[in-house]
């Protein structure tokens, strides 16, 4: 294009013939040497300073790490209440975990004989080892929390709706992977807490035997034992299990998670950016005039792939700002807050490390990390239902939400407006009442085995009918009733999700605070019996 008239560009010196002793080449070498830093910079960053809108766009567009972002971003996307920064925080936590994890691998030895000693080294001898380990542990907890909060945000703002349905499913996959990463990492310190939490986890993997035993088919099809053997490479937690968990924790799960994070981000772009309500585009507010020359350098003919009727001339640009630097400030701020919080936690609070694993004496009580404690309460009713069936139902049910609720309505609104806020509130009250009621009943009166007439019911009855399954059934009925009476699948989805969230919170609190030795009920830890 620039060579229209056949004239040479002046910026490139034409190659000229040189003879030996020509001072010109040497002089050029000298000036090249001096200008090398500038030439190097210009070869890396192939556009000028981001002062014009075009240069700002190029800053995003031509950078490998930033090109996942759009060059212009809708104003709604950077409002604090749109995402609360939770997605960015989760991603930053993943990066922190990768960096601190690699550092810990320098000293950690995945061997039954040496793992615990190497943990002590990291805590007491290795320079900054204590801080790095603390940050790693707290970031792992924080990542689980952020993934859950991020999921709640996406749910309550209806961001799972078409065309974002499949990205919600990928998000569910990332949720499960995050829990898997935490669980596999939990064994590595090889302390009592680790050993017994993973023993419980591995036996939960074996618990389908509860069902196959009841059906009398365990000897033909023992999937429970098979799962445990694949997970542990043995029948007890030992060296085989440690190395398997190590491989999963440092290699398999992080790689899969990183790939899915990439797909998750990519689809946000492909699905049209963050979900925003229609009024975000229709407001009569005057937007700042564009000080730009929006002509793109290249046109890829994307118009041919557009689904809508006509391209919106001069309308798409309204309500948007350049990503550089506006969105970068937002991402930077969320990242810095996250890193700072983790550093402070790691500096002031030590990650727990109990005594070395002892396969002969269990911890009493042996408690899983907080995000599994709600499940542990359910597991104390039935291992298979609480540990396998109910979590599977919840994860599957959540993944299917976008396909069961396909109502066309505005997205990006918290709770989908006043009606949804009311459903959320009432469902929260209902869930709190049922969960607290069930816990009170179970603690006060026990369950089938504690009553004279039902003490000897077969195991299958207890498996299928226990406080956990009753709760799930009540939640399901409540949400179906909401669909029926509110005549809206979205309201039913809100009711179900709220029940799930409230149930999770209360069960987690209850198992953390009110369960003591022998999984008995105590008002507080100070009431625990002293050995």
């Amino acid at each position, binding site marked *: 294009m620039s060579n229209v008239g056949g004239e040479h560009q002046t910026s490139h010196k034409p190659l000229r013939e040189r003879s030996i002793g020509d001072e010109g080449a040497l002089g050029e070498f000298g000036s090249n040497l001096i200008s090398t830093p500038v030439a190097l910079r210009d070869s890396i960053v192939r556009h000028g300073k981001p002062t014009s809108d075009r240069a700002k766009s190029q800053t995003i567009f031509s950078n490998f790490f930033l090109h996942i972002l759009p060059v212009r971003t809708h104003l709604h996307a950077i409002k604090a209440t749109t995402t609360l920064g939770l997605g960015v925080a989760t991603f930053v936590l993943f990066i922190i975990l990768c960096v601190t994890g690699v550092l810990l691998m320098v000293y950690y030895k995945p061997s039954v004989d040496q793992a615990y000693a190497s943990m002590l080294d990291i805590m007491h001898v290795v320079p900054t080892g204590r801080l790095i380990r603390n940050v790693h542990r707290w970031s792992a907890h924080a990542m689980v929390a952020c993934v859950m909060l991020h999921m709640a945000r996406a749910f309550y703002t209806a961001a799972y709706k078409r065309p974002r349905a499949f990205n919600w499913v990928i998000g569910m996959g990332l949720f499960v992977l995050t829990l898997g990463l935490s669980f596999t990492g939990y064994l590595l310190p090889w302390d009592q807490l680790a050993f017994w939490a993973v023993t419980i986890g591995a036996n939960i993997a074996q618990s389908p035997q509860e069902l196959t035993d009841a059906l009398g088919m365990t000897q033909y099809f023992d999937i429970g034992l098979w799962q445990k053997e694949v997970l542990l490479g043995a*029948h007890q937690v030992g060296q*085989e299990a440690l190395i398997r968990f190590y491989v999963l924790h440092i290699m398999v799960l992080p790689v899969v998670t990183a790939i899915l994070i990439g797909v998750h981000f990519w689809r946000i772009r492909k699905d049209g950016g963050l979900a925003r309500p229609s009024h975000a585009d229709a407001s009569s507010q005057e937007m700042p005039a564009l000080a730009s020359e929006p002509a793109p350098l290249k046109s890829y003919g994307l118009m041919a792939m557009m689904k809508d009727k006509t391209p919106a001339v001069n309308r798409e640009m309204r309500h948007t700002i350049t990503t550089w630097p506006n969105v970068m400030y937002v991402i930077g701020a969320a990242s810095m807050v996250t890193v700072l919080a983790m550093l402070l936690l790691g500096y002031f609070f030590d990650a727990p490390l109990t005594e070395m694993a002892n396969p*002969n004496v269990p911890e009493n009580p042996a408690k899983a990390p907080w995000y599994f404690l709600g499940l542990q309460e359910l*597991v104390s009713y039935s291992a298979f239902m609480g540990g396998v069936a109910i979590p599977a139902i919840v994860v599957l049910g959540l993944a299917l939400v976008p396909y069961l609720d396909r109502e066309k309505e505005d997205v990006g609104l918290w709770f989908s407006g006043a009606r949804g806020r009311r459903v959320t509130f009432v469902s929260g009250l209902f869930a709190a009442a049922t969960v607290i009621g069930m816990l009170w009943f179970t603690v006060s009166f*026990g369950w089938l*085995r504690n009553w004279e007439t039902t003490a000897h019911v077969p*195991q299958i009855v207890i498996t299928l009918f226990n406080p956990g399954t009753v709760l799930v059934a009540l939640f399901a009925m409540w949400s179906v009733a909401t669909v029926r009476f509110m005549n809206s699948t979205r309201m039913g989805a809100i009711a179900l999700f709220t029940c799930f969230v409230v149930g999770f919170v209360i069960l987690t609190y209850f198992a953390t605070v009110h369960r003591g030795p022998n999984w008995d009920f105590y008002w507080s830890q100070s009431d625990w019996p002293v050995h």
Partner: protein
Amino acid sequence: MAADNNHIETSQRFAPPATRRDFLGLAATWSAIVAFVMAMLGALRLPMPSVFPESNSRVKLGRPDRFALGSATYFSKLRLWLFRDEAGFKAISSVCTHLGCVAERGVDGQYLCPCHGSKFDEIGAVKGGPAPKGLVWVDLSLSPEGWIVADTLSDVDPKTVLQA
């Protein structure tokens, strides 16, 4: 209609629904998919161990005369209680059948699991809590030299005793 069909079939531009080329293409695609899946399954066979670290599960517990009549002996590494009464020897594993914690045997002879509160009576039958089945009775036998041998990976029907 018939005329149209004839026209399409004889035309160079419109191929009939399936050609030899289509068939070969589909066959090649599916061969590749089947080969890939089989290769993956083969690769996944590796993590499934054929020998377990505890495979040598037969352990000598001691000579019968070491254990007095009416005694209860605990082997903490094996997580195993050995009892001797008039009928003979019996061995009960203290590993809880709920989630694998080690149940504690109280002075009354009952077992209590610290993890989720499962309770078992003196012969290991479930009395309460979430345990799906009773404690395991471990297979006992006499070695040729007359030692009591426990096979920690094989269980027997409750109330099976070894006379020695």
